[in-house]
């Protein structure tokens, strides 16, 4: 009988993946490439996925050298320009900042940032967090906090941009942005059921109302949807559980077992996880589901050995990268979330990199390497389930016993 947590069989292509991510940066620069065209409008997010993926495989210094995070590097060229220099990613990120609104766009055209969006604002802050640049003087923390605040609606929900799409994803993103900026007011559940008032000033957002809105999106099956009434979806479960975790409000999750069972039932016979009943397994759900199960203290409810095997089967053994499912084309999004999946089930450590060193670990709440989270002093909340020891990586958060 195989153990549920056994290390998966088959090679892990560390060097190929690292190479895939590094060369992707150059492909992204080339608008004629497929990768460049499809990610053009969300470049900032693409850069975040690349950096975060590489951060799980390489040290901070190596990431900087390979990607040109804080300094310009020589770009690989298509032969037309031998000495093409690519500016530092951090500098480019600041070019995507729209000072008029206080948010980041998904890209920039020359000096002009594209329209700001909450999604890209978080990706930009995550890039700055990874590169230890959150104290860069170009970062106007107050302006960004005000931008996030301006997107909160009367009912507590958040819109992604000024045109108004509402989605529980945006609540998670808003919380995460403010936490990274050190400006998230926490609800005071012991007292007046209201957002903690630190000073006489009005808090930047109404976290209490935002959390209430999240809870109004809970469904009969224990899961969460995009808006009240919408079907449960694994991606939404992560954003809602993650938001509750950041806001230290996980005690509101009565019946965490029902939710966790819904998540566990997403595991298919292949070992992979799907996002909704009767949908195909897909590597990215390794992240959405495992991160939620980690926060809920119930990763062992699924067969992690089989899941690890599924993720390894989605690797491209020639060019590196991880695809959504076996035999598909890899992309950076699934590469990042596949690595996250392997990290969250503790298998990346078991595989070990070529120097025999441990890989850096991913934090399931902030989707950043744990060393970055601890450097920033970020503190979310995780559940200790039935007295089982909380994984080491989670111990930097506060622990809720239920």
């Amino acid at each position: 009988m195989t153990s549920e947590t056994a290390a998966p069989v088959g090679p892990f292509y560390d060097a190929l993946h690292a190479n895939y991510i590094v060369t992707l940066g150059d492909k992204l620069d080339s608008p004629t490439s497929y990768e460049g065209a499809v990610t053009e409008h969300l470049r900032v997010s693409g850069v975040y996925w690349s950096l975060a993926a590489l951060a799980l495989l390489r040290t901070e210094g190596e990431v900087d050298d390979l990607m040109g995070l804080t300094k310009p590097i020589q770009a690989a060229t298509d032969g037309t320009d031998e000495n093409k220099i690519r500016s530092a990613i951090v500098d480019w990120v600041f070019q995507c900042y729209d000072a008029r609104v206080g948010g980041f766009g998904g890209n920039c055209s020359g000096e002009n940032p594209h329209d700001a969006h909450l999604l890209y604002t978080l990706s930009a802050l995550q890039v700055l967090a990874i590169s230890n640049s959150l104290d860069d003087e170009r970062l106007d923390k107050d302006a960004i906090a005000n931008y996030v605040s301006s997107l909160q609606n009367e009912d507590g929900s958040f819109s992604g941009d000024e045109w108004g799409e509402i989605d529980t994803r945006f609540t998670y993103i808003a919380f995460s942005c403010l936490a990274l900026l050190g400006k998230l007011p926490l609800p005071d559940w012991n007292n007046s059921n209201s957002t903690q008032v630190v000073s006489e000033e009005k808090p930047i957002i109404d976290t209490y109302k935002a959390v209430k809105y999240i809870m109004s999106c809970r469904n009969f099956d224990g899961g969460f949807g995009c808006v009240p009434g919408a079907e449960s979806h694994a991606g939404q479960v992560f954003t809602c559980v993650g938001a509750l975790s950041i806001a230290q409000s996980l005690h509101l999750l009565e019946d965490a077992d029902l939710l966790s069972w819904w998540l566990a039932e997403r595991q298919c016979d292949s070992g992979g996880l799907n996002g909704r009943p009767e949908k195909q397994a897909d590597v990215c759900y390794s992240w959405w589901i495992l991160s939620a199960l980690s926060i809920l203290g119930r990763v062992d409810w699924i067969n992690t050995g089989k899941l690890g095997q599924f993720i390894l089967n989605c690797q491209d053994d020639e060019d590196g990268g991880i695809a959504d499912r076996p035999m598909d084309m890899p992309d950076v999004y699934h590469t990042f979330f596949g690595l996250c999946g392997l990290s969250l089930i503790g298998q990346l450590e078991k595989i070990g990199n070529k120097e025999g060193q441990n890989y850096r670990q991913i934090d399931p709440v902030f989707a950043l390497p744990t060393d970055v989270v601890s450097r920033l002093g970020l503190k979310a909340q995780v559940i200790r389930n039935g007295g089982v020891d909380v994984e080491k990586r989670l111990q930097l958060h506060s622990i809720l016993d239920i």
Partner: protein
Amino acid sequence: MNIPDVFSDIDPISQSDGPEPACAITYTPEFVEAHDYLRAVLKADERSERAFALTTICLKFNPANYTCWHFRRRCLVSLCTPTDSDARATVDVERIDTDLEFADKLGGTNPKNYQLWYHRRALLEIRFKGDERIQVAQKELGYVDKILGDDNKNYHAWSHRQWIIRTINQPQLWSAEIEYSHSKILLDPRNNSAWNQRWFATHEGEIAANSGMKLGKLSFEKAEEEANYAVCGAQVDPFNESPWRYLIGVLMEQCRWVQREEGADDKDKVNGLLRDCVAKIKDMNDSPTEDYPAGPCVSLMSALVDLLETVGDKTSLEEAKNMMGELVVEDPVRRKYWHKRQSTVLVLLGKVSE
């Protein structure tokens, strides 16, 4: 449309590509030309027919351009509403309907782009006025049905239906939506989105009907109907996860409520319903139909152990414990989970035996 001719009085604003090669993006010349003029009319906020036509061109290039959609609506509202004093009465509804068709065509048969749905919603907010709003809503529900015919789990489409029904909030639409979800379940019993819609229509419909008494739960009579509906669905295909979740959802909602409200009249009725469902599921487990593979059915068994635990007497807990033992073997992917459940049920058994 020859853009430079039509906009001969306007200076196009080109995208200023700076010296940074990291940000250079190449588009086709047609794309660039259209967007250079779009930037110019946006800047001038020119809400004219030709500006409207230009947004059509740009959206065909890139239907995800939300700035362009927004500007198109600005144009449309200006063009539809006469500028004289009693503008209110004379919105050109035909023109709005034509634009709904434009969004329909642009989205094709499987629109997943949020902007298209948002555009419809913004236009419908104008159209959901006066007596014809129910008719307009029904027509829009017909459109969504067409989309769901192509992809019966399209998340935006189901959300759009919910928005329409909530916004109109008429009893006839609520009850029609229960029927609609039923028809979609018949077509594909494993369509979880349709089961979710049924929950939405029964629950929010009931809340809307009894606006004075928002219990946030179904009446016992309705719950009984819905539980039976779910059991029937499970009998059709016991390997289908959706009816089981629906059943547990309906029953747990009632149980939680009678637990909270001390001495509620419904307590005995709810317990009766719970035991009734358990009996039916046990029957299914003992005599499976010929249509399905013989042998254990994990969905059925996991629902049954949940309900047996809820019943909570000694016999039921013993049965639950034994069945969890079977699940350890039959559901190997979640073996550890079932081990855990076994240990919790042992604790419960210890408590009832004391």
